[in-house]
């Protein structure tokens, strides 16, 4: 929609958009700034914005207390692992729903989404008991499994809506040429659906990274991700804003950076069928 707009109008829009954008972003900026302050500066009245003695001591204290890299590593394994596993299960399912729909397809899809509404805490004891009897408490297997199942409905739904936008003719042409079902999915569908798959993957990594109930409840040491790391900084004694900010920055920075770098891919497929 490249309409000709006067420079004045454009300037007004720019100012409004930047103001709102900065307001929305401000809390994150504030976490970042505060993480470089001393505890006393963090609560200074009036608040200090850029002109304070920048210090990295908070990061030192946080790292000394907890092994950040291990939590980070676990977060990466769990979120990436559950996303890949989820895609492996969801791609065939979404394919069949999109291209060979049956009478019940829509119902199945909607039912899948409804499983996501199970209140986690209501099934806490069953899951804990199952995990204990299988002896997989505090392992990647358990965490990846649970997060895959939690996010599977969203993955299937996203892929389904994306696949549906792909013209069926192309697939049929491939079939005419004698492509097997496997080849059809691998070499025709997947390349076309790549933006959708990429976007689904990114969204799921974000969701898995930020999931805080199961990751905290089902881990102890070996598989504990960054959500558990944050749980030890939430209200320590005394002044803690600066340390909390440092820990928060460490917990959200990786995913934030990933999100920014891949935002084009994320946005491209993030339609959930909202656009026809």
């Amino acid at each position, binding site marked *: 929609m490249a309409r000709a707009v006067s420079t004045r109008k454009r300037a007004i829009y720019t100012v409004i958009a930047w103001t709102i954008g900065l307001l*929305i972003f401000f809390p994150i900026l504030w976490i970042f700034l505060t993480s470089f302050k001393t505890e006393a500066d963090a609560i200074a009245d009036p608040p200090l914005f850029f002109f304070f003695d920048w210090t990295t001591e908070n990061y030192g204290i946080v790292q000394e207390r907890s092994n950040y890299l291990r939590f980070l590593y676990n977060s990466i394994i769990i979120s990436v692992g559950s996303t890949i596993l989820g895609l492996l299960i969801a791609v065939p*399912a979404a394919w069949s*729903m999109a291209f*060979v729909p049956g009478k019940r397809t829509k119902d199945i899809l909607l039912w899948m989404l409804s499983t996501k509404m199970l*209140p986690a*805490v209501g099934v806490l004891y069953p899951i804990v008991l199952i995990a204990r009897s299988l002896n997989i408490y505090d392992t990647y297997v358990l965490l990846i499994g649970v997060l895959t199942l939690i996010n599977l409905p969203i993955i299937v739904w996203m892929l389904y809506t994306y696949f549906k936008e792909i013209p069926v003719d192309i697939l049929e042409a491939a079939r005419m040429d004698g492509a097997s079902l496997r080849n059809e999915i691998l070499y025709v569908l997947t390349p076309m659906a790549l933006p959708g798959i990429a976007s689904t993957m990114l969204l799921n990594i974000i969701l898995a990274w930020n999931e805080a109930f199961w990751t905290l409840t089902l881990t102890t040491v070996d598989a504990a991700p960054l959500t558990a790391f944050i749980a030890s900084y*939430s209200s320590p004694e005394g002044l803690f804003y600066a340390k909390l900010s440092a820990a928060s920055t460490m917990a959200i920075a990786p995913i934030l950076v990933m999100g920014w770098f891949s935002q084009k891919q994320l946005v491209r497929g993030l*339609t959930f069928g909202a656009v026809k």
Partner: protein
Amino acid sequence: MATQHSRSAARLMMTPAVILLLGWMLVPLVMTLYFSFLDYRPLRGAFDCCVGFDNYVRFFTSSSFWPSVLTTLQMVGGVLAITVIGGIFLAMLLDQPIWGQGVVRILVIAPFFVMPTVSALVWKNMFMNPVNGLFAYLWKFFGLTPIDWLSELPLFSIIFIVSWQWLPFATLILLTAIQSLDGEQLEAAEMDGAGVVNRFVYIVLPHLARAITVVILIQTIFLLSIFAEVFVTTGGSFGTRTLTYLIYQRVIESQNIGLGSAGGIFAVILANIIAIFLMKIVGRNLDR
């Protein structure tokens, strides 16, 4: 087009997802259902079958039950209203020609990447705290008495925090939808003398209907099970006890698994009612 062969292949490919989700749903659900008929209080060493519908009666007649359902609906409704309205506004703004559009978009979507726990902790301590929070400084700067957000406006505060997290999601989806809007149609309407309001109501809004439904559906799924934000900020005080939180209190704090399980079963039923209701609408919207 579908041959018998591809039809059965399709079934086969759907099977893993369906079976896994069925197992994920049924196994815990059956166990929860079973627990809900037990006197299961681990701290007392009680694991006794069966108490019939005692747990259900106790859960439903408890004075905190209906308020918690109402709170849940208010919270979900509040967040939906803010994110959808705010999202439409932001999406339309971002669709305008502006300098540095890419950067603004990065700024706007950033909250979506922040862990709910972190976001709740930061809003609670560094912004809403009535003594040391930034809002308190801001209020004092204008000569006003700082508001104690979490006890004076508890529900609003939590809705606000959650909306901040979900606004980017709504904005992104609505933005994609707006960008697909036919510019010529709008221009033609403008030529015909349709005002800004009319153009919005008769062209933009209908075009967005589908996107709005999707936003509502996806967000509702996530919002119904909101926990971390309540746990960190008010701990369910001041009328912010949602159904999820009430169940948490029964299961974890009171260690009455039977009673909590009865609540869990109700929550599942409630979620499904809302789901069916939503999906009727969405299904219709998506079939078009």
